[in-house]
């Protein structure tokens, strides 16, 4: 603390910026939005912007759940499989031209499946003390197997009424904006409760948290349940945006959710970070992708450029740290 006070004001500002976990994601977001605007002058047109943002919603929900698990000192490689499982359960329970009650039932069943799947992960990690990476890798097979059992190949349909509700824009802002606001509100609420304090304490140092009376195992179990529920919501969003069910749709999103969490400034070691940064990370990932596709790059190069951008985004905080350290004697 004393060192920070001794610095001149500009130095202190930079210290503060470096301390803020999502500062780098914010810089990337501004740069990416500016580049998008330069490439597509109608980028800030609400309709175009809304259409762009809508495609991020499933990843946004998934990555928000991943953030909670990571802050609690874990990681969940099965979230994509849970997304697929809820997705096919919701779509097959909807059937042909469902009534309001059946829609509620289908969505409820999908969300319940997600929370239960998260509880299985949480029980294995928190109570049986399995290592999170391999455990959730193993359960991801169980969940995708179940998804394939429910719906062996993509199919089903979502009623038109639901699809148009998904495309609605209350107060002229796209639904994804309101979803992000809701997620942030829920996160803010969670953080201010005792559970939020316990979550950070558990992720920071399990042993000291346990010794100071934090119920470590229930806290970890709950973090996986929350993530499972968020993955189920992502499965619902996916059903509404693709209007079909697909037992394999979630898998590629698992690893993107982790990258979004890291770009958003949450460290994988746990006990630090937040959902706001993750949301920035998701939007940054999406904006980068649209830059590459609008730049007119030959298609063979797009994957490489996308991959390099992700690595540079991940390297950013470390690069800043290197430069920062280099200036000190």
């Amino acid at each position, binding site marked *: 603390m004393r060192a920070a006070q001794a610095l001149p004001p500009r130095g202190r500002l930079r210290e503060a910026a470096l301390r803020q976990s999502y500062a780098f994601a914010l810089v990337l977001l501004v740069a990416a939005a500016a580049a998008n605007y330069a490439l597509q002058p109608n980028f800030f047109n609400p309709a175009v912007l809304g259409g762009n943002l809508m495609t991020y919603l499933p990843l946004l929900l998934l990555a928000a759940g991943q953030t909670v698990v990571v802050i609690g000192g874990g*990681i969940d490689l099965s979230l994509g499989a849970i997304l697929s499982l809820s997705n096919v359960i919701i779509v097959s329970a909807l059937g042909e031209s469902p009534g309001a009650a059946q829609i509620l039932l289908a969505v409820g069943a999908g969300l319940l499946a997600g929370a239960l799947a998260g509880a299985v992960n949480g029980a294995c990690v928190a109570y049986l003390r399995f290592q999170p990476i391999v455990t959730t890798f193993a359960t991801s*097979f169980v969940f995708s197997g*179940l998804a394939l059992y429910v719906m062996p190949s993509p199919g089903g349909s979502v009623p038109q009424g639901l699809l148009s509700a998904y495309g609605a824009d209350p107060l002229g802002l796209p639904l994804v904006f309101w979803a992000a606001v809701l997620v942030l509100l829920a996160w803010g609420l969670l953080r201010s409760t005792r559970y939020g304090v316990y979550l950070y304490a558990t992720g920071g140092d399990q042993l000291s948290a346990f010794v100071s009376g934090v119920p470590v195992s229930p806290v970890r179990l709950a973090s996986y349940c929350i993530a499972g529920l968020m993955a189920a919501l992502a499965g619902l969003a996916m059903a509404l945006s693709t209007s079909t069910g697909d037992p394999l749709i979630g898998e590629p999103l698992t690893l993107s959710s982790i990258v979004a969490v890291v770009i958003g400034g949450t460290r994988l070691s746990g006990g630090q970070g937040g959902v706001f940064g993750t949301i920035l990370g998701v939007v940054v990932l999406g904006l980068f992708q649209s830059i590459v596709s609008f730049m007119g790059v030959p298609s063979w190069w797009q994957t490489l450029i996308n991959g390099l951008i992700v690595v540079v985004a991940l390297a950013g905080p470390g690069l800043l740290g290197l430069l920062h350290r280099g200036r000190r004697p």
Partner: protein
Amino acid sequence: MKRPRVDPVLIALLLAAGLFALGSLLQPGFGSYDQAMNILRLAAFLGIVAAGQTLVIISGGEGIDLSVGAVVTLGAILVFRLGTGEAGGALLALAIALGVGLLIGAANGLGITLLKIPPLVMTLGMAGVVQGLILVVTRGELRGETPDLLAGLVSGSLAFGIPGVVLVWAALGLLMWLLLWRTPYGRQLFAVGANRTTARLSGVRVPAVVVATYALSGMLAALGGAILLGYTRQVFLNLGDPYTLPSVAAVVVGGTLLAGGVGSYAGTMAGALVLTLLTSLLTALDLPESARQIVYGLTLLALLSLYGRQRALRE
């Protein structure tokens, strides 16, 4: 340092024997000598790819290499395109593939040590870059040929019907044992994995060891790709993807701690055998894909319950 109470290598070997016996009970022909050799051959591919993964996981610091699948594909494609003509050409192509794998691994190591990127996301990002490289190099056209040397190595047998690739795997096992237990690098690797601060204070150049470890992992993944090419004689853009996470699982089933500092390649070899037997058994039983995945996942969980558990907080 925590030592597992039961020897995981022994458990994994017993489990492999049990799975094999179960297979021969349930499915006539599963227990035949030819089938056993075939399973060993399939296990060799996973085992070779998982060799580098073992080193990376022993090095600790949340070490994991998720780029191995992409590097396997790149290695196979490089040998496929460049390895035309005589045996000399094939060896040159193999050397180039191994060199590229080494460089990719070293880049992973530099990102992790110098830029402080967590290994999980660094190697994941690298997998994306390597997939991009593959597309740029091939432009979607996968033309080339499989060098006879590699095809002969995998399908031909030297003695008693043992495929050449199994002998290569056994030789690699011996080399890995020497590397881990009889070289300064091996000693330093275990020290770095157990506790980086202590290792640094005792004069180990931690970043150099970590970069070398990831570089070796990249090279071994490229080697796995070249040998896999000898089996498939064809390349696909996602040839290596099915090896990424199973290579981690094989290491863990073999008793190497994900926390680092404790482990062996003998365990990984046994783990690769267990996972391959499990997959072969599920395929032989002709179960639907959904049931196969569920059983595979549940078996992995059961294996973890045997010795993949962390200490209770109360202890």
